[in-house]
């Protein structure tokens, strides 16, 4: 038996391909939306992997340093290093800000500025070009997503930093590319005020009789000095010794140091289940709407195409074609349309995904799920047309 659906598709392939192309673009958008979500999850995981830590020690009662702000003193890491099972501990700061690239016409880029100590957790794991930081100040390693090149000069607050190394896939949980600078510079950048504000603060302190006591020489200067320096960091990254469970070290830190400590699994949960949860729901809602729209389009197209063949269907029924054969023909056409749409959508998503500003991760598993959903949606969408076809009276073929 010949394939009626196949012959019909071949006969009007132009119409099918064009319709499938339109549907494919919609499917491409759907796959991309799923890729955007996967990209967000992957960004979060990459952020954690790249930090090279087993534990994140942050301010008590916070879920920092990525989901909430956290501030702890920069000498805490020494206490943590003294705990049993800790191999390495290092301070880090994170600050999302606009960084100006003086070498690129002052172009501004939203970045996450990371302060780290060379050779310690928090340092970028690999470089694509250039070298690691060897000077204590004013050198930076930038993710290529910032658009910076080796030798570029980045302005962070009041200082300029020379880009000496380039790395990639170093992004914040929000997808912002990272710029790595020395910890001391980063601490200063977080709290450094402009000159006018410093002068105003000093005047305010000097005007306060409680702080400016003529009978205590040097007090005012000491207060001013403490106000213009910063001894805080956002987190301490901890690497535990081989064979030691991170959770047991985290328990000790919570119990004895009155700080919050998160393991990798807990940090993933914070980033994925909490930080990007709203965005995920938003995307999920959008995906649901796209699926409904796709189903409506397929149903409408197949229904219209079937109505255009009512006389042929009546003839087919009159000459003895089974209802099952006619239903199968319509179902196969809907599935064929879905197949064309899926192929176009997959290609489209693959082509345009790299052009997105944030990472879009197109997982093969998502493509397989998407394909199955498209087929199910097309099958369901064809029921309307099948119902209309089965209601056609073969007697319609006879008479005027």
């Amino acid at each position: 038996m010949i394939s009626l659906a196949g012959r019909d598709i071949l006969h009007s392939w132009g119409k099918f391909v064009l319709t499938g192309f339109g549907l494919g673009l919609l499917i491409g958008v759907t796959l991309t939306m799923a890729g955007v979500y996967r990209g967000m999850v992957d960004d979060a995981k990459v952020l954690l992997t790249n930090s090279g830590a087993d534990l994140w020690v942050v301010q008590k009662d916070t879920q920092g340093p990525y989901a909430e702000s956290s501030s702890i003193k920069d000498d805490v890491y020494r206490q943590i290093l003294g705990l049993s099972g800790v191999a390495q501990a290092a301070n880090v700061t994170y600050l999302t800000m606009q960084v100006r690239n003086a070498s690129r016409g002052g172009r501004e880029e939203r970045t996450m500025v990371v302060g780290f100590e060379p050779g310690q957790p928090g340092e970028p794991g690999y470089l694509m070009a250039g070298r690691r930081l060897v000077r204590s100040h004013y050198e930076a390693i930038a993710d290529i997503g910032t658009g910076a090149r080796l030798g570029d000069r980045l302005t962070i607050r009041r200082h300029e930093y020379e880009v000496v190394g380039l790395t990639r896939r170093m992004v914040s949980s929000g997808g912002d590319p990272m710029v790595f600078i020395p910890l001391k510079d980063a601490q200063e950048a977080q709290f450094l005020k402009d000159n006018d504000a410093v002068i105003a603060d000093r005047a305010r302190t000097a005007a306060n009789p409680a702080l400016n006591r003529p009978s205590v020489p040097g007090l005012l200067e000491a207060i001013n000095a403490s106000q213009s320096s910063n001894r805080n960091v956002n987190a301490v990254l901890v690497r535990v010794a081989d064979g030691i469970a991170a959770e047991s070290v985290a328990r000790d830190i919570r119990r004895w140091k009155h700080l919050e400590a998160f393991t990798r699994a807990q940090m993933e949960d914070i980033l994925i289940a909490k930080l990007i949860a709203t965005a995920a729901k938003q995307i999920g809602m959008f995906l649901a709407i796209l699926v409904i729209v796709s189903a409506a389009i397929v149903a409408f197209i197949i229904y219209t195409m079937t109505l255009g063949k009512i006389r042929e269907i009546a003839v087919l029924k009159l000459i003895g074609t089974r209802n099952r054969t006619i239903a199968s023909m319509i179902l196969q056409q809907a599935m064929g349309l879905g197949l064309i749409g899926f192929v176009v959508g997959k290609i489209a998503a693959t082509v345009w995904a790299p052009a997105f500003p944030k990472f879009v991760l197109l997982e093969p598993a998502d493509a397989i799920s998407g394909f199955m959903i498209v087929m199910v949606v097309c099958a369901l969408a064809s029921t309307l047309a099948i119902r209309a076809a089965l209601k056609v009276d073969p007697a319609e073929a006879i008479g005027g």
Partner: protein
Amino acid sequence: MTATTDTGIHIAGLSKRYGAGDTAVDALKDVNMSVTPGEVIGLVGPSGSGKTTLLKCLGAVIEPTRGQMTLGGEVIYDQGWKIPDLRTLRRDRIGFVFQAPYLIPFLDVTDNVALLPMLAGRPNGESRARALELLQALDVAHRARAQVSELSGGEQQRVSIARALANQPPVILADEPTAPLDSERALAVMRILNQMARQYQTAIIVVTHDEKIIPTFKRIYHIRDGRTVEEAGEGREIE
């Protein structure tokens, strides 16, 4: 009256009533008709006389109210359908030719004809061979691989006749097959129908009010207000 039991199609006392009560309409009233294999008869009548209703009853697409129908020696209707699967009956034992060819536009000429044997479960090769044989007989074999849209009106009608003959049915019902054609082409179609009836021993009933072809019938059934009257036709030879 009872239907005869030889081959061909025979109907006796066939009636069809639409609706019920005060609004009931008797479309057919005790219709009798008999067509033997190899014979082409005309069913002639004005619009609304019951021609199409009779054709639908004969084609097993609507159920008569009462009467008897015999097809190829088998009683298929006697106060109710005697054949459980009317779809198979239509597929295997009744051929249809319509006013417009109504060929399936997405199948080529051969497959339009071969579709019926295929639907009956015959192998594709055998079905296509049968189709080619019929297309040869109808002088359209040279268009065997053509698409329907590439054929002329006359060629399309010949292909539709080939399709009607594909499963070698004992009867073909032709619903105004010459209506859209000019005199020359209409007579050509009638010549083909007569030739096919003789060649394949098929009984052919041609519903028409086309004055051009009425003289070609040897027997004519006039239908008016649901009743049929048989009369001899001129049986004029078609050149």
